[in-house]
């Protein structure tokens, strides 16, 4: 991981950030660079240090060592100026549930030194924009999970922040609401907001982020463009199910002997009667489907899956241990699945 020194377009710059809680090393030398106008996904399991990172970057927590700047402001030396340029949407909706939606936004506006009239106008506009106008006068406690997150996002946007932190923004939401939140985040990004997103889900990272930093136990274990990392962890998995279960083995054999370059071995999921094929590109995916049809095997379903966080970790830590990715034999994978 080599990095250029001080890129001019860097919105968040983190160098060697360390945070200890007694014996626990929540962060153990993290480096991170978020370019302006991009979405950086910080992917990691529970306890990886994601929230600690966000809390340091929003001045809620002082680092033990290291250096971090946001929009050029130092987290330790210039906390007040820094707070002016950030927006924070935490893991738990950080709105006052007893207050109506409108009052929540008006309050934040006033705390950000907007004159009364402007604070009012901004609250109205943001409620409108996040489709909350009808619920404006109701206490936030009566909102649904999705509405609360939207209100939370709206509250984060009042100060027109240059950098927005989204700390696991969809944890605990149902799939529909999650899509809703993603949609809002994409709109914000479209308006040029820089986003630092933490998540436990590869899918979420893929949906929103352009670059990814994978953290584990306070350390960065991989970083780079999302396509690049996806390729490193084996891209997607294609799940093909033959209409006739007896065709399962022949199908797997056929796919194994395809001879498509770079295609890793297949796995047979006998329980669900499907063959799993890791594919690295759309071309490979098309080639596999083409080959299956050419053999005259009828399929009942075809789907693709992203590698789970577990798989990402398996391959990344495997990578770090010095085992080249393409050396992971098909047999190993089969054992994992069985």
């Amino acid at each position, binding site marked *: 991981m080599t990095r250029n020194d001080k890129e001019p377009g860097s919105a968040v710059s983190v160098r060697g950030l*360390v945070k200890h809680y007694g014996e626990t090393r929540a962060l153990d030398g993290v480096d991170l660079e978020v370019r302006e106008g991009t979405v950086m996904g910080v992917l990691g399991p529970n306890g990886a240090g994601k929230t600690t990172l966000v*809390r340091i970057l*929003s*001045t*809620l*927590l*002082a*680092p*033990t*060592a*290291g*250096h971090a700047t946001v929009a050029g402001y*130092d987290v*330790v*030396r*210039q*906390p*007040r*100026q820094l*707070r*002016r340029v*950030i927006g*924070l949407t*935490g*893991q*738990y*909706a*950080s*709105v*006052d*549930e*007893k*207050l109506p939606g409108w*009052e929540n936004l008006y*309050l*934040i506006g*006033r*705390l*950000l*030194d907007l004159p009364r009239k402007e604070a009012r106008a901004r609250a109205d506009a943001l409620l409108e924009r996040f489709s909350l106008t009808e619920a404006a006068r109701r*206490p936030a406690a009566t909102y649904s999970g999705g509405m609360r997150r939207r209100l939370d996002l709206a*509250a984060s946007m009042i100060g027109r922040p240059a950098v927005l932190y989204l700390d696991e923004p969809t944890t605990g939401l149902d799939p529909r609401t999650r899509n809703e939140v993603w949609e809002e985040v994409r709109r914000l990004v479209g308006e040029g907001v820089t986003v630092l997103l933490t998540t436990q889900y590869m899918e979420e990272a893929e949906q929103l982020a352009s670059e990814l930093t994978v953290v584990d136990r306070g350390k960065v274990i991989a970083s780079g463009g999302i396509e690049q990392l996806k390729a490193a962890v084996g891209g997607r998995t294609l799940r093909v199910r033959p209409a006739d279960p007896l065709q399962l083995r022949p199908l797997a054999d056929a796919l194994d002997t395809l001879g498509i370059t770079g295609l890793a071995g297949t796995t047979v999921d006998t329980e669900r009667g499907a063959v799993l094929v890791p594919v690295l590109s759309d071309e490979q995916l098309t080639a596999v489907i083409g080959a299956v049809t050419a053999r005259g095997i009828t399929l009942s379903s075809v789907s693709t899956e992203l590698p789970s966080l577990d798989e990402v970790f398996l391959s990344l830590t495997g990578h770090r241990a010095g085992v080249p990715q393409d050396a992971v034999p098909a047999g190993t994978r089969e054992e994992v699945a069985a």
Partner: protein
Amino acid sequence: MSGTAVTTGLRADARIPLRAHLRHTGALVRRNMLWIRQDPESMFDAVLFPIVFTLLFVYVFGGSIGQSLGGGQEAYVQYIVPGLMAMMGMNMAQGVGTGFNQDFNTGVMDRFRSLPIGRGSVLFAKISVEMVRMLIATAVLLVVGVLVGFDITHWPGLFAAVGLSAVFGSALMWIFLTLGVVMKNAQSVQAMGFLVLMPLQFGSSIFAPPQSMPGWLERFTEYNPLSALADAARGLMVGGPVAHDLWMTLGWSVGITAVMAPVAIRKFRTKH
């Protein structure tokens, strides 16, 4: 602290002007006031507490304690109402701690702390609102007191007594705010408050004259700031010596505030 290299030419951090502090505190006061409007039941304790305590003490203990004061129930009314006024601040202060602690366990405190506001504003706002509650409780107390026969002989002294209770109450609030920040949950704040407050309240001249207490307890009550406040309030409202107790109370208030306000703000600032 941070092991960063010395950076030269870095702009100094912005300061928050006083006017902005006031504006922020005002906005947060509005928030706390809206809570009351949203949930009027939260005012129940402020209203009911003085009614229940006044009736309870006057009618249950009034007769017998009044005798030792050289009168009857009427004599005790004159004694207990200023005493309860002293107690009011303490009770309201305890509520501050629990309320503040609950506030902390929601994400909204994180939001406030990530905004460019003076971190004292959140605490000052909380105290201002609790003062309003305290004044309401005191007003109720006085009304009930007058209904059961309390005779205010020094009207200017009444306002002085209310003011003095408020000053002392606000000093106590800093202690409870600190507890609210430091302790894990609202229940422990409440339990802690109860453990400290019970002996302080009853080991004072609030409810009964200390002369009848054993020597060691009498000495304790002498140094108990609540006794000073209760006696000062008595002196101010119904006549009697005031100066010594007044200065004692003010001294305690200033002392507690000077120590605990910075501690509370500091703890609030560095809370994870």
